[in-house]
């Protein structure tokens, strides 16, 4: 993965040294900086240096701000993580509920409605949905803020950039509510596609389980429907759903690029878009690396969650 990112970034046209020094720099100055940055070294030497830097947590210096990329990204990463977690919780809760309801009342109007909604959901351009949500809830109804993490007059002085989580833990209710209100619209926009996919997978997984003998036995015992559906069936139907939820994280982190751009969300996605415009390749490289690492970490976590859902699964 590191090789791919390294090669991709080296393929970007334009000389980083020239970009850093500006158009008026002399060729000698540019050459000196190229030498200093190691850009004249053979590719494998550059890669070894890059690998060493990455392992030390050094992602280089931003060509725009001249600040360390690691620090710049770390300052923005919590905003993206908070948005992604909120969207994933929303998508999982509503998606699983919609899928169960659809499976239990299969072939009913409700089922058709949910599945039609899910199909529209996966076909929706999230940047457009974001704009439409903004148009109705911010501009027309003025119920929710249109962008940013907090109101313009509010200052955040927390220890971390997890504004909603930290304000909740510290009991700063005004900040918490404001932060949460800012999360709602970008969260819904980002959650729509995963929600639709989760609903479809939950439905099909539930339909398979609901036909099994032990469900018939549970019903024959006289257990209430909700208990059979949620305690007996859903628990066994969850495995493919969790897999899909894990796979959606990549979609979410990628989708954050578009959502953050629309809602002026100060996260890593918007930062990457701005960096691409400015050809600030250390930032783009670091940002993609961080997002991809996050995605791999979540998939590892999903593998571990399997053992909690299904005790028959064991890792050696």
């Amino acid at each position, binding site marked *: 993965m590191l090789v791919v990112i390294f090669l991709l970034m080296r393929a970007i046209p334009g000389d980083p040294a020239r970009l850093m020094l500006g158009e008026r720099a002399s060729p000698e100055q540019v050459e000196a900086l190229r030498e200093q940055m190691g850009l004249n070294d053979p590719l494998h030497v550059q890669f070894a240096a890059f690998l060493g830097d990455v392992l030390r947590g050094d992602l280089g210096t931003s060509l725009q701000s001249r600040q360390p990329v690691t620090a710049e990204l770390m300052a923005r990463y919590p905003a993206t993580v908070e948005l992604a977690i909120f969207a994933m919780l929303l998508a999982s809760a509503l998606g699983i509920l919609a899928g169960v309801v659809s499976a239990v009342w299969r072939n009913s109007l409700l089922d058709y409605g949910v599945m039609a909604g899910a199909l529209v959901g996966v076909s929706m351009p999230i940047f457009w949905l974001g704009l439409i949500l903004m148009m109705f809830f911010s501009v027309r109804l003025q119920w929710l803020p249109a962008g940013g993490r907090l109101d313009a007059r509010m200052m955040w002085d927390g220890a971390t950039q997890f504004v909603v989580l930290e304000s909740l833990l510290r009991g700063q209710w005004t900040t918490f509510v404001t932060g949460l209100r800012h999360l709602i619209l970008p969260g819904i926009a980002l959650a729509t596609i995963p929600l639709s996919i989760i609903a479809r997978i939950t439905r099909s997984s539930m339909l398979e389980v609901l036909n099994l003998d032990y469900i018939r036995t549970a019903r024959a015992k006289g257990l209430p429907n909700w208990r059979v559906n949620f305690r007996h069936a859903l628990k066994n139907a969850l495995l493919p759903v969790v897999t899909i939820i894990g796979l959606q994280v990549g*979609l979410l982190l990628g989708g954050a690029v578009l959502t953050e*751009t629309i809602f002026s969300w100060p996260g890593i996605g918007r930062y990457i878009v701005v960096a691409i415009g400015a050809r600030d390749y250390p930032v783009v490289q670091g940002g993609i690396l961080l997002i991809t690492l996050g995605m791999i970490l979540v998939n590892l976590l999903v593998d571990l969650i399997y053992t909690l859902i299904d005790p028959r699964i064991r890792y050696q």
Partner: protein
Amino acid sequence: MATVTPKAPAPGGPPNPAAGATPPPAGDPGAAYRGPGVLRRLLRHRAAVLGGTIVLIIVLTALLADVIAPYDPIRGRLADMLQPPSPEHWMGTDEQGRDILSRIIHGSRISLQVGLVAVGISLTTGTLIGAVSAYFGGWFDLLVMRIIDILLAFPSILLAIAITAILGPSLTNAMIAVGIVGMPVYARLVRASVLSLREQDFVQAARAAGGGHGRILWRHILPNALAPLIVQSTLSIGTAMLDAAGLSFLGLGAQPPAPEWGAMLSGAQVYIQLAPWVVTFPGLAIMVAVLGFNLLGDGLRDVLDPRLRR
């Protein structure tokens, strides 16, 4: 060797008689689409009919854009800027006084082209890589599949953004980027099909009859791996259109004044309060087009490859 006939079977036709008179195995991925009733079954699938109708309308709109568009999609009249929907301009006008309906009609050409070209790139490169990798196996397969896995590990839109950043912002480069991003899925799909097919009797027979690697892959294996590819391609056209529209929205795809649907939304954000129709209609066009391909793809999957049905 007496049972081996040197004559190769027609693509998509029954396996080489060398396979014997036994019916195709239950897992034969090509079996489902060879039946005569595919079209009949597809026409009975309500979602597929709806999706097919939407796709047909988009194709006709794209073909007849010059005839049916009421105004020029590029040149507008500043005197008509930001007009709300009216009998003259059904979807209103944008900030340069251009008729939004005309731009959407012409934009269908670009979106359709983006979907088809990007999926074409994914399909051809993915099929080639997956088929060759599975057919020859060994260290080559191992290496290629690890690279495919790495590509699959990246969030797709992010990888597309990185590729467009390298190639430079343009519609062609956006299509290439979306095509590359979609390729790994095809490589995996074809590899799985080829792995199961290469050991089957009719392939062994073709090999025994002296068929070369290329001929065996092209004439005997790939035609039998077509069904999942057709389904995946149809579903991917919608996704490719979405990704390309996303790139254009970020300014990395089609450039102004091209009437690309995503690019039309890019500048529209400013007018969200003043002229909501500028935002509403291009997005609606993207959604309906993607929905059409998704419905058709779902229907084709149900008809052609029931094992994939969810």
